[in-house]
Structure formats: C-alpha cells, structure tokens
C-alpha cells in the first residue's frame, strides 16, 4: 500500500499563515491569544489547541536579515517515538497510510509521548488532560481529501500525495534549485526516525537547525532502552523471582525450627 505524505517546500513559503487558519478551522479549535514578543510568528510555540505553526526563523546572512519560514507540526515519523513510549493501547495509532494519529478516547494523559517525540510536538492540555497534535487530517485523508493546510496553501509550498511521489518531487525540486544556483538545497527526511511522512525541501539542507528542525533526530536512546532491554530485564526479574521462589520451596521446603528454647 502506498503511504501518504506532505511535502513542504520552504523556498515557496511566503508566511501567509493561511495553513494555520485552515488547521484551526477544520479541526474546530478555538484560538487562544498568546503573548506578543516582537515576532511575526502567531505563537511562540505549538499548543494543545494549535497544531500547525509557521516559524519565522530570523536569519542573518551578509548583514541582511531574512526570514526562513518553516512549518512546524507533527512529522508523522516512520518509526514514531511517541508510539514507542505510549503505555495506553490504542491511544496512538499508526495508520496503514503512514499517519500517526492520537485517539483521545484511549489517551490517559501521562505525557510519555512528549518524552518519546524527537521533534517536541505533542502538547498536554491542562483542561482535558489529554495530548494533542496534528493528525495530518486523518479524517480528511480517509475520504480522499487532502489535509486542510495543503488545501488552502496559495503558493503550492505544500503538496499532498504518496510518499514515493513526493520524495521524487522533492528530489527534482532540489535539482531545480541547485540548477538555479541554490547549491545547498536538499531534502529533509531524517533517517534516524526511519524517515518521515512530512518532507521538507530546504534551501540550506546542511543547516536544518536554521529552520528550527533538529539536525539528526532519532527516538531517544533512553526511550529505546526503556522499551527494549529494560523491559526484558523486568520480565526476567518478575518471572525469575516468582518461579525461583516456587521451585526453591519445591526443592528445599520451608525453614525448620532447629533450635529448642533454652
């Protein structure tokens, strides 16, 4: 089965924030005013009711200030750290089309997914005590529609399609940019999380951190150990302890009172 993806061509983003509005509208989210801190960015950070943020990364080159616009939302990893960390079965669902979706009926609000996520995306709501993030509009893609942000994008900075097609498209766009003299152009599809279903074309792929993207993200080692070897150790100790005690009794029996009172 083909999996779906979103391609973000940062070279075409004009920072219009239409995708933010579309996301809020489609997902029926009320907007909570943040603090104004001198930036054009809508909010400083993602929020439980704000899943799609255009970061206005301020970047200085040759004494000139420029904006490196980048869209910040769930990356829909091929190997999702949130899913590895989640203790509640069915709270995080990895759909066959590649979307990593949260099912809030099963979410218990522990916040382990926040720790598991290498992109710092899920946000715990203090009111509902559940965790929220972009669903890549799983309710729209399920019926053949493109996600709301992509539907509304006026510059075709955002495209929706199969992951294979979009990886190809990202490569050809990169080649195009390089031919145009943007030598450092490249694709952001980090291998440390098995690749992502949200792909970027960056004008300077050598420095993803300028776009607010982690350079080499991976599921944290602590989470991999916790859900791997530590889990085996736990099973070994519990099963070994119970069986060990039982067979100790079978072999040696109880302690006898060997001494008499004086």
């Amino acid at each position: 089965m083909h999996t779906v993806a979103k391609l973000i061509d940062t070279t075409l983003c004009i920072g219009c924030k239409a995708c933010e509005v579309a996301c809020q509208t489609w997902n029926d989210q009320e907007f909570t005013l943040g603090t104004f801190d001198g930036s054009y960015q809508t909010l400083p950070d993602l929020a439980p009711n704000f899943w799609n943020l255009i970061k206005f990364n301020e970047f200085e080159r040759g004494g000139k200030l420029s904006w490196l616009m980048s869209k910040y939302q769930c990356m829909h990893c091929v190997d999702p750290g949130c899913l590895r960390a989640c203790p509640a079965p069915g709270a995080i669902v990895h759909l066959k089309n590649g979307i990593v979706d949260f099912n809030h009926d099963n979410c218990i609000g522990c916040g382990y997914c926040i720790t598991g996520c290498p992109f710092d995306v899920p946000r715990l709501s203090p009111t509902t005590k559940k965790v929220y993030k972009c669903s890549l509009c799983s309710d729209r893609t399920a019926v053949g529609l493109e996600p709301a942000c992509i539907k509304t994008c006026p510059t075709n900075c955002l495209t929706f399609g199969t992951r294979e097609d979009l990886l190809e498209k990202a490569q050809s766009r990169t080649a195009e940019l390089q031919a145009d003299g943007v030598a450092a152009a490249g694709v952001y599809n980090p291998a440390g999380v098995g690749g992502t279903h949200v792909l970027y074309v960056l004008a300077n792929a050598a420095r993803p951190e300028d776009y607010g993207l982690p350079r080499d993200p991976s599921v944290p080692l602590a989470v991999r150990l916790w859900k791997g070897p530590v889990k085996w150790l736990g099973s070994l100790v519990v099963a070994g302890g119970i069986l060990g005690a039982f067979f100790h009794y079978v072999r040696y029996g109880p302690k006898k009172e060997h001494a008499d009172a004086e």
Partner: protein
Amino acid sequence: MQSERRMARFDLYERTVHWLAALSYLYAALTGLALWSHKLYWLAWVFGGGVTVRGLHPWGGTIFAVVLAVMFRKWAGQMKLDTDDREWLRKAHKYAVHEEEGVPESGRFNAGQKMLFWSQALATVLLFATGLVLWWPEVMPRTLRLAAVLIHPLAAIGSIGGIIIHIYMGTAAVPGALRSMVQGWVTPSWAASHHRKWYRESSER
C-alpha cells in the same frame, strides 16, 4: 489446653506501618505494572481504567514513600550491619539451602532483612524522585524526563525483585514469620532458631 509461650516480636505500631507500606506498595506496583507493558494493561481496568490509574498511581507512590519514611525512622537504627552480618552475607547461599552450620547467629533482623531494608529505602528515593518528574511532564526539562523514564522502571524492577523474595520468605519459606507481622508474636523456639542473638537478649531482659 496448654497455652503456647509467646514472645512479642513486632508491636502494633510496627505492624501498622508495615501493612500500610505493604498495601500502598501493592497498589503502586500493580498500577505501575499496568502502565509498564501493554500486556499488563488489563490491570489498569482492574483499578478503574487508564485515566484513573494515571491519576492515582503517583498518589499511591507518594503514600508509600511517606509510610516508608516513617518506617525508616523506626527501624534504621536497628538495621546497621555488624561484622556477623557481613559474615552472614558471605554465607547467604548456605542459609538459602538450610545448611546453617557456620552461618552466624542473627539479631532482631538478619542480614538479608537488613539488605532488603536498605535496598528498598534506596529504591524508594529513586522511585519518588523520578516519579515526581514523570508526574508533571509538561513542566519538567527533557533531560530529566529522559533520565526518569529509565531510572523509574529500573528502580521498580530492583524493588519488585526484592519484594518477591521478601513475600516468599515472610510466608511460605519461614513458617511463623507471617504471624509475627500480623499478630505480633513468635514462639521461643522460633526466635531461638531464626534470630538467636535477639532471642538471648530478649530472654536475659
């Protein structure tokens, strides 16, 4: 009917503290196991569902930590390892298979019990500290959370391993031990067999 001679072993205060610790431990451990593995998530339903368990497991752990602090205050002074205890630990393998010649006599607590006490105290400090981090993930720095998701289960595994041995020793393996913690008394021959130094000290008094 001839009444058995009784020696007081654990007073009401000690027994109450012990069983409060046991109950809160059991709650924290079982709800913790529910969140530990999807295969054990059915335990969450036994205790009222995942949301309830996520809400109350930290409180169960907090109650246990508080009770354990009370227990620590009561018993820490009696848990210091002396030279006999160190010798006992070297011969613990012989004690385990009931070959007790050459195994030093024990006081009120044997060296195994003392080790359990100290290891549980350490595990509880680790569990409580990392538990606080996991309780409020939204305000905790990422590095602390990453350390906590590793240390919390490791401390729990160590603790549960010790408690499995403790429950076995306190019930099936040493007849009379459970009664000492429930009703508070033992027979003189029990004391002479398992805690001879304590038996002698108590008899002399």
